[in-house]
């Protein structure tokens, strides 16, 4: 695989900061989970940050995003405030889903962020519809649809790939291949483990990218987004990545060798970018410290915001089951 050229210093630092924000935010989430401030299911993206950070650079504010239950990173990088996300995990009204969704169901109309879907594969059909609506209205937008390798085994994946290609829908199918469907290794559940090859059979451009290299991810996503936007057709990227933490907070992580995890940690996307930027003279120790400081400050502010947030009164329990907004 050829190495993508380094971007300008400003952009490199920006990518580094985005990934670090996700990493540090989630590390803090672990502490808050242990302190019982956050409950329910929580799935960490640690190790996979380059995927969200790279892809989000390639799409525009008016594009749509559909994500999975492992979506803190996508939400942060997309621009939902860390405070609104943290408040959501605290179950507070100030949360981006008013505390009704939690970690797995982050939503934000302002950034066209359509969840946070906790059914594997369940977001793909939605992405088709969002792309269809944009296409029919003559809006040159794309829908970025993230899902894991496990989703490839679902019928909804195959149905959606076929329909998107058949109808020429501008969807970016972004498969975050972290090699495990929860605790089952890909070789134990897929007959064909080259997922891009599988996707290509649906008559759409499909290729694999090193998902630990944010610069490579961004370059690939830009190419895919341009194809989808101009051609009005779907594109598939397999982003080869790895999660450093367990599947969820409940997972004892007994199904994969410790050596494998350690080996992948050698490809930590944050360390890798830092090293490249340093080697090129684009990142100083002072820069790194400043990024760490700014990220820590943002996260502290987010926690303070969540702590100060309000709990929805139980009298309001049955609200939002049906639409309460203005006439549409």
């Amino acid at each position, binding site marked *: 695989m050829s190495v993508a050229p380094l971007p300008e210093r400003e952009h490199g630092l920006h990518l580094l900061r985005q990934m670090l924000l996700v990493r540090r935010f989630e590390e803090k989430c672990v502490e808050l989970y242990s302190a019982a401030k956050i409950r329910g299911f929580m799935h960490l993206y640690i190790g996979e940050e380059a995927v969200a950070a790279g892809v989000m650079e390639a799409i525009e504010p008016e594009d*749509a995003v559909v994500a999975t239950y492992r979506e803190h990173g996508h939400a942060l990088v997309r621009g939902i405030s860390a405070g609104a996300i943290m408040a959501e995990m605290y179950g507070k009204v100030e*949360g*981006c*889903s*008013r*505390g*009704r*969704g939690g970690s797995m*169901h982050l*939503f*934000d*109309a302002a950034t066209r962020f*359509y*969840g*946070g*879907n906790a*059914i594997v594969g*369940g977001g*793909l*059909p*939605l*992405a*088709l*519809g*969002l*792309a*269809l*609506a*944009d296409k*029919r*209205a003559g809006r040159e937008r794309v829908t970025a649809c993230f899902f894991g390798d496990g989703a490839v085994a679902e*019928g*909804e994946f195959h*149905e*959606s790939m*076929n*329909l998107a290609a*058949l*109808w020429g829908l501008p969807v970016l199918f972004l498969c975050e291949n972290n090699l495990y469907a929860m605790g089952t290794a890909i070789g134990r559940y897929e007959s064909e483990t080259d997922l891009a090859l599988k996707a290509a059979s649906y008559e759409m451009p499909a290729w694999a990218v090193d998902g630990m290299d944010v610069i490579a991810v961004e370059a690939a996503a830009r190419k895919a987004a341009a194809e989808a936007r101009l051609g009005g057709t779907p594109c598939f990227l397999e982003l080869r990545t790895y999660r450093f933490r367990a599947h969820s907070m409940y997972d004892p992580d007994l199904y994969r060798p410790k050596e494998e995890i350690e080996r992948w940690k050698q490809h930590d996307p944050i360390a890798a970018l830092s090293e490249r930027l340093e080697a090129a003279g684009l990142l100083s120790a002072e820069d790194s410290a400043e990024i760490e400081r700014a990220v820590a400050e943002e996260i502290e502010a987010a926690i303070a915001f969540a702590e100060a947030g309000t709990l929805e009164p139980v009298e309001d329990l049955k*609200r*939002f*089951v*049906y*639409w*309460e*907004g203005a*006439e*549409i």
Partner: protein
Amino acid sequence: MSAPAKVQSSYREAIRESIREALLADERVFLMGEDVGAYGGCFGVSKGLLDEFGPERICDTPLSESAFVGAGIGAAIGGMRPIVEVMTVNFCLLALDQIMNNAATITHMSGGQFPIPVVIRMTTGAGRQVAAQHSHSLEGWLAHIPGLKLLFPATLADARGMLPAALADPNPVLIFEHASLYNMEEELAADAGAVEIQRAAIRRAGTDVSLVAYGGTLGKAIEAADELAESGIEAEVIDLRVLRPLDDATVIESVSRTRRAVIVDEGWRSGSLAAEVSARIMEQAFYELDAPVERVCSAEVPIPYAAQLEQAALPQASTVVAAVRRMVGAGG
């Protein structure tokens, strides 16, 4: 003053006309589903619409229920007004993830950020000897789900008027069409349009017993009421029309007058919509009753092919009549 103009119409034509009108009125509306275009709809509902509106508005889909129902939900969130036709309720099982986990939850899970103005139509019911996998009545299951609205037109006016009302609703609305009703013909007001979709309707007034029916069982309840009238028993017939949220006020008001209720439901008895209606009568009108509530439901078997077995499995006017006579005889 001259009488308002009437036209002769079938249930099928009434639905088609409502789709046509919606497509003409709002460019955000489109119809998609299996065989809705070139074939004209499995039950002929959309015949001619492809020629009139073209393939961007009348969209044939692959046999991918989950993908196209989900695409309808996504398109609704994206600002369109999709009418999704799922050929039959049997196949909606393949799209249940989208219906239950997305359509019914996203408005709530997002804290009220997104309306989902999608309409999902599906044919339902037994009685045509198409055996167990094509004869389901799953309205009761779907009526279990908060976040959805469920409509079941049993008259021409409702067949004509429920769709525009559903499209104007910012929530996901499921409309059921009983396969046995498509050929039903009646006179319909030439200017028939949207109807209200909150209330049950009393289709026949009576004083001695309330027959609560909907969809495919409404005609059977009316037939039973006519037969009972010959022996001096006046049955009131209620058409539920809206299966979620249930209009129990109309049912309770009627039962409070007649003091007896028989619920006629093509769903299986256990855990049925009939069970829900019965429970609400117990909760709200127990002391008004002269006899225990009765239910006439489908027998708890997969619907068999053989005609005599199938008919025996389904609610019939005769079984409704028998239930009423039992009740009147026992309760006085």
